[in-house]
């Protein structure tokens, strides 16, 4: 009861802070749009490759950019918790009886909502750019779920990194090191069948791949639901593990005081 309520209060704080930064919102929305337009144009002819199996590159790319944006937005979320630690806000929370879990859960919930809004905007923009969503509303909902199920664990991991490293520079370095390779080791931009063999193998263990693949299949219609749910099950498991790691990082932060 307390947990839910406190999580809600924490989430509202993050929402208010976000809404106070219109320029930040503008740039973080512009970023995926640039990707969608730029990559969409640059790799337009890629669909002509034998074995690509897509009606148009925008159709193929859209779920990729939705997932990639979710990944990056979540991956930076550890910066916020470092700011709270640096400014004494975290200590003020910890001397109060506020639910400890809510401090992290509020951030995860906030992140999930941001991702849903951001993804919906991108899906709408895709329509304007001529993308088709044969999977209909169900497909869109599954894609949103996939985006959330990727962003929540990465948000948790990013917070765990922040709690452990406690320096923004370190989190920036680690995020850069991890996020981009994970994106390219997945079929965000390229059909899985056309990726080099070793990338295909590595990508089987990559949650970004699970998320893009499940979302893309659902959006294409006539989905292989068993495959979609298997992949989403993997994401759920990954979410639980990441949540556990973030909890541990939080405990060790408290112990180190």
């Amino acid at each position, binding site marked *: 009861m307390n947990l839910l309520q*406190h999580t809600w*209060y924490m989430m509202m*704080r993050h929402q208010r802070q976000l809404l106070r930064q219109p320029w930040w919102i503008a740039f973080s929305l512009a970023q995926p749009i640039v990707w969608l337009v730029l990559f969409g144009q640059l790799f337009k002819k890629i669909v002509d490759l034998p074995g690509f199996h897509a009606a148009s590159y925008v159709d193929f790319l859209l779920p990729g950019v939705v997932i990639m944006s979710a990944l990056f937005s979540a991956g930076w979320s550890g910066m916020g918790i470092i700011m709270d630690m640096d400014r004494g806000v975290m200590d003020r929370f910890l*001397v*109060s*009886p506020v639910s400890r879990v809510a401090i992290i859960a509020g951030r995860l919930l906030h992140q999930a909502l941001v991702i849903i809004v951001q993804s919906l905007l991108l899906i709408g923009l895709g329509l304007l750019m001529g993308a088709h969503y044969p999977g209909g509303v169900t497909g869109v909902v599954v894609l949103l779920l996939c985006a959330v199920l990727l962003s929540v664990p990465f948000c948790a991991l990013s917070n765990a990194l922040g709690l452990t490293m406690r320096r923004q520079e370190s989190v920036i370095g680690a995020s850069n090191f991890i996020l981009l390779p994970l994106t390219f080791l997945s079929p965000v931009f390229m059909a899985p069948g056309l990726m080099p063999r070793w990338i295909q193998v590595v990508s089987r263990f990559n949650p970004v791949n699970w998320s893009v693949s499940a979302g893309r299949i659902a959006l294409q219609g006539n989905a292989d639901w068993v495959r979609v749910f298997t992949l989403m099950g993997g994401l759920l498991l990954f979410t639980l593990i990441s949540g556990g790691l973030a909890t541990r990082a939080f405990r060790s932060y408290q112990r180190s005081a």
Partner: protein
Amino acid sequence: MNADATIQVAPRLNAIEIRGLVKTYPGGVRALDGLSFSVESGKIFALLGPNGAGKSTTIKILTTLSRPDEGEALVAGFDVLQQPDAVRRAIGCVAQKSGVDRESTGRENLILQGQFYGLRGAELKHRVNGLLHRFRLSDAADKVARTWSGGMQRKLDIAMGLIHRPKVLFLDEPTTGLDPEARSELWDEIAHLAQDGLTILLTTHYLEEADRLAERLAIVDRGKVVVEGTPDALKADLRGDAVQIEFAAAPEEAVVRQALAPLEGIGDLNLHGAVLHARAHHGATAVPAMLTTLDAAGARVASVKVSRPSLDDVYLRYTGRTFQQAEGGQR
């Protein structure tokens, strides 16, 4: 001081009771080395000491942020290790590093803080408005705290610490970094708080602050309480005037001691470089004699200052260093 503690027969209600706290940080820094003291309910108690004496570590342990390696601490009757949640409900804390969320408005900061303690609806709104009014923050209440002055943010910090009507309030160096005007304004506020029956534990490295606010104080040095009492009693203990003599060049300590040894009513000699601190029963009569003998011994005096005992002298007496020296070098 010990005598004072042992003759205490009637049980009294202590808001804070700590015994033998030890805390060693990784790397072997011993922040607390058997620290003990108690604070009576409804009193303002100050921990006075230079940076690094262990004051902030003590506050961290009492507010459940940190755990001691050894020792015991009770706050409002609750054990900080066994009942941290009960402690958290009973205390308010104003940390050295402000806890104000600078990207939220003052009102939002207060509301969120109140929500943690289960306040809501009309009651919360009423409480928030009351505190904003009391600390004269109403006009700026709906502006983002980033735009506030340091003094206003500090007052907001205190208001947040009070939102749930705590029994014990911790103020960790509340006026550090404030300009003199904001500092004196805050002193008035703090003195006011104690009138409502709140127990306040204040840490400070300003002698003047402890002198002015605290009903009792403990001087903390290197993780231990070296002396405890009311500011007046501590100063009265010293008996006599503080004499500070500055030499033209740093003299030999043996020379100075030898020269002054025959003089009566002079004690607590303390030579640091070219500055000599001493205590004289009657400063006005002792000084001329001191100057004569010192001059005869070849220690040329550049300036002399005689003053009534201050907390600085108390500090010097019990730690063997002036407060400034401790602040400067000995971290």
